[in-house]
């Protein structure tokens, strides 16, 4: 026994073993895949330096024949951003073993990352011939077709991928296609299925919530955003969207508490500071509002919504000259919004530049289709200028819009605006304005609770119209009316622009289309 053991022991060390063949003429060849497992372990543990060392060693030993070492080296190159190098290495792999679908997949992936979508689809199709049941190939082909703007083909491929194996990513891409096509309902359908399949994916939940928000289905939106926040209480998008919804409901303190989490995670987010600013605005802390909005503006100087809010807050602070600058900047970025011109006109009126104010109003009236405030304010200006006929025309225009709004929705009007309109009506001797009968009944109870009591039906997608209305009515009230109205008016609600939903839901599709255009 002891002898036997001794014998085995002498056989044991490899040095003794490897010496023998070396003495002969023909040397033993090292096993090519000897350290593949080690390369792989280092790779998945993200220890890329160690990984590269092993790869180098193994490639030297096998004179560049070890396919897996090259493969991982290429993967690392790609992670480091050297996509061209990675592509070349993957092509080497594909030469070393031409029957492997995986190598082709990686070649295609690198091509895709280089923006060569056409070439990528060709290689993916090649790979699909070798392996027909791979969801990844179908999925990536679908993504390539999205970039090539062949949305039908993309849909087919993505549905194929789902058929083979369901993955969250595929659902997300399918949803994006529907968004690109502008079909919100279909997108929601897809995301609903996706959420059913993986109910804990916060990205899916958030996106679905934002889509509902866009459609104005606030109950469901809040439900999904809330779910997302349960699973990930620090989800940036979900917090911003949920916070903006809270803001529209007037829960500024709750929203602010939520924003703190985001402020910690993404301190340089312009929409975040915009929303915080508007929270303070709602709480009537105007100075804080201005400083937060200015930070937002500093972070995103080209965002017209922030400029709009800044203009609004400055109007409230009676800083008309500053308001003018912010509003005119906003108009430069967004020249198609009637309300902006109206605010500009209010600023100009207060700066005693009636002529330009009137021109701004004309533009506002031309652009705006549904906001009665635009006409009301214009009418007030005209009336103050002594042009009763023009004022009357605007007043009637306003009544038309009001009637239209009343028919289309159960929207309630800001009591302040109603009061102003009635005063103007009296001054113009139009008689009792019938249009207001309904809201005027109990204007007081609505002073603060308008939004909370009728939340679902009340809000409009952008949320800003309403806010604007309020702001405008207050601005209108600054004007001295002959009837002695006016005085200091209070802003009941701030414009809580759900800024985030827009960028998150829409920005991605537009990004994609932008890339396509570049191609």
């Amino acid at each position, binding site marked *: 026994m002891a002898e036997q*053991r001794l014998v*085995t*022991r002498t056989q*044991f*060390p*490899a040095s003794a*073993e490897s010496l023998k063949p070396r003495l002969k003429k*023909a040397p033993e*060849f*090292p*096993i*090519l*895949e*000897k*350290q*593949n*497992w*080690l390369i*792989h*372990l280092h790779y*998945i*543990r*993200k220890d890329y330096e160690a990984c590269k*060392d*092993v790869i180098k060693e193994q490639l030297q030993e*096998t004179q560049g*024949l070890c396919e897996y070492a090259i493969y991982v080296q290429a993967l690392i190159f790609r992670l480091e951003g050297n996509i061209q190098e990675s592509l070349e290495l993957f092509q080497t792999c594909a030469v070393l073993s031409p*029957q492997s679908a*995986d190598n082709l997949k990686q070649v295609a992936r690198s091509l895709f990352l280089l923006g060569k979508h056409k070439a990528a689809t060709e290689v993916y199709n090649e790979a699909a011939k070798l392996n027909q049941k791979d*969801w990844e190939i179908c999925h990536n082909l679908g993504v390539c077709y999205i970039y090539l703007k062949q949305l039908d083909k993309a849909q087919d491929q993505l549905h194929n991928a789902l058929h083979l*194996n369901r*993955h969250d*990513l595929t659902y997300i891409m399918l949803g994006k296609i529907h968004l690109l096509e502008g079909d919100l309902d279909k997108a929601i359908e897809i995301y609903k299925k996706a959420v059913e399949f*993986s109910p*804990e994916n916060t990205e899916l939940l958030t996106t679905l919530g934002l889509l509902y928000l866009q459609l104005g289905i606030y109950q469901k939106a809040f439900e999904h955003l809330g779910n997302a926040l349960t699973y990930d*209480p*620090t989800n940036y998008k979900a917090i911003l969207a949920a916070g903006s919804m809270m803001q529209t409901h007037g829960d500024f303190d709750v929203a*602010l*508490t*939520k924003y*703190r*989490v985001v*402020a*910690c995670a993404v301190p340089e987010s312009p929409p975040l500071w915009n929303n*915080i600013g508007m929270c303070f605005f709602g709480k009537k802390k105007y*100075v*804080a509002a201005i*400083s*937060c909005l*200015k930070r937002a503006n500093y972070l995103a100087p080209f965002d017209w919504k922030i400029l709009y809010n800044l203009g609004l807050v400055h109007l409230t*602070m*009676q*800083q*008309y*000259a*500053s308001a003018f600058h912010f509003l005119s900047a906003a108009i430069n970025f967004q020249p198609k919004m009637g309300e902006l011109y109206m605010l500009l006109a209010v600023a100009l009126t*207060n*700066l*005693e*530049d009636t002529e330009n104010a009137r021109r701004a109003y004309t533009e506002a009236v031309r652009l705006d289709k549904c906001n009665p405030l635009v006409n009301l304010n214009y009418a007030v200006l005209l009336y103050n200028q002594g042009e009763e006929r023009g004022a009357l025309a605007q007043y009637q225009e306003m009544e038309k819009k009001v009637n239209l709004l009343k028919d289309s929705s159960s929207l309630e009007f800001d009591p302040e605006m109603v009061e102003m309109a009635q005063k103007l009506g009296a001054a113009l001797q139009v008689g009792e304005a019938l249009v207001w009968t309904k809201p005027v009944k109990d204007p007081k109870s609505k002073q603060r609770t308008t939004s909370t009591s009728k939340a679902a039906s009340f809000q409009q997608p952008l949320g800003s119209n309403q806010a604007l209305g309020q702001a405008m009515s207050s601005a209108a009230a600054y004007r001295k009316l002959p009837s002695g109205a006016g005085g200091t008016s209070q802003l009941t609600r701030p414009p809580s622009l759900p800024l985030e939903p827009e960028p998150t839901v829409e920005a991605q599709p537009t990004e994609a289309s932008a890339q396509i255009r570049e191609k």
Partner: protein
Amino acid sequence: MAAASSSDSDSGRAESSEASSKWLDAHYDPMANIHTFSACLELADLHGDGEYKLVVGDLGPGGQQPRLKVLKGPTVLSESPLPALPAAAATFLMEQHEPRTPALALASGPCVYVYKNLRPYFKFSLPQLPPNPLEQDLWHQAKEDRIDPLTLKEMLEGIREKAEVPLSAQSLRFLQLEPSEMEAFVNQHKSKSIRRQTVITTMTTLKKNLADEDAVSCLVLGTENKELLVLDPEAFTVLAKMSLPSVPVFLEVSGQFDVEFRLAAACRNGNIYILRRDSKRPRYCIELSAQPVGLVRVHKVLVVGSNRDSLHGFTHKGKRLWTVQMPAAILTMNLLEQRSRGLQAVMAGLANGEVRIHRDKALLSVVRTPDAVTSLCFGRYGREDHTLIVTTRGGGLIIKILKRTAVFVEGGGEAGPPPAQAMKLNMPRKTRLYVDQTLREREAGTAMHRAFQADLYLLRLRAARAYAQALESSLSPVSATAREPLKLHAVVQGLGPTFKLTLHLQNTSTARPILGLLVCFLYNEGLYALPRAFFKVPLLVPGLSYPLETFVESLRDKGVSDIIKVLVLREGQSAPLLSAHINMPASEGLAAA
């Protein structure tokens, strides 16, 4: 608000101290020089004396000196060099009879080395893979000199591209050779038979026929050629062979070989395949769409860590149960089993130096270590039942003992709202100046606005005038005419009194070269001297920037400086195409001159 935050942080501190108090720090050696993976860590009663040792298949620093280390307590009991890097270590009982000391198996390269009583006992080599018959035939022909090296190469190339069975290392090397070296290579190697060997990538144990803790176990090997082998514990013959679609990285087995077992194999393609006793091919497949970094079975749940920093729980049929996001990359995972309390949980070692212990979704405890955790192991060590062994990236070894009174409760980690919610917002401050300005604007807003507008008009007017003037006199450094699109910029180098003036002239048209240009300098001759004030420009190829150098000598020593005008002209035209004004620096080298 302040009170709330302080109480919060208090509770946080209490929590962490409570969590750490579950563990006794038994040993910490940052220089233990142990570099290994969880697969190469094993706790076992190697000598049958009830004193459990730690077996480490050590890669050595930089993976250079593989060693087998056995530790008892904090000290290294024995250390022996290994022939190759160890891929996995396992201890198992080979036979029924007493004394029941477990054998130690170390997988390395194509072999499993089996030790008993820490002495080499047996070496198992993976069976040779069947060579490609065509390839074998070709080399046979070569041996009999019926085929010349070039044809051999062509034929082998053909096989490589089409065949299912890959070529041997010998043929692959041959294909890489230069034609001149082929002859010698063939002569040297033709007499050898073709051999194909594969490598073990992972190894685990599987009970043979009893579920007892001290029952005889088989070794289960995963190999580089996508196969799983089950070895007989006594005879070391291959009992079963299963094939996978990819190379296995981690294995997890439950059940008994002779009765029924389930085998989960995490593979390099990011999928996890689940096999059963009677299946030669995978029954279920879990597609992670990321790389698995660890696979642990907790009761009936397969817990997988992915390289996207998340833990997933799956059933044995591949249905996803839950997902937990980790704060950092997962480096390694292992099972924590506290038999006395019937607790099984998964430990995940993270790149940020934490070890997180999860039971399903719930975080039970967080152990913080000073470095990134590379391997983990929990079990009986020495005479202590519940010991946690941790090795860190720098080669450190940490041994912690779980207190006998310690009870893991859910929510031992983080719960409730994220801590950031209690932080105060970083609000920009309002300044005195700001308030003053606001007040002033309120008082005199209209005046400010008017003044601003008036100034703005003036500014625009001036800008327009200057622009018009520049256009009229070709003063701009960029010429946009269709025939001669040119760009000019000038650099002045030197301290004086002699300066070097370099004009960079670029033809910005896409295709057409420009010929027949002249450069002219206008300067105050009392101040500066130039060797040539007027010269011809060579042909300008589109796109290239031509540096045209000239020296400028400053003649005055009073530190005066002036403007030099550069005009680019076309031959036969008096109006310049473009011009530049160069503000010469004051000469600083005058004192010396």
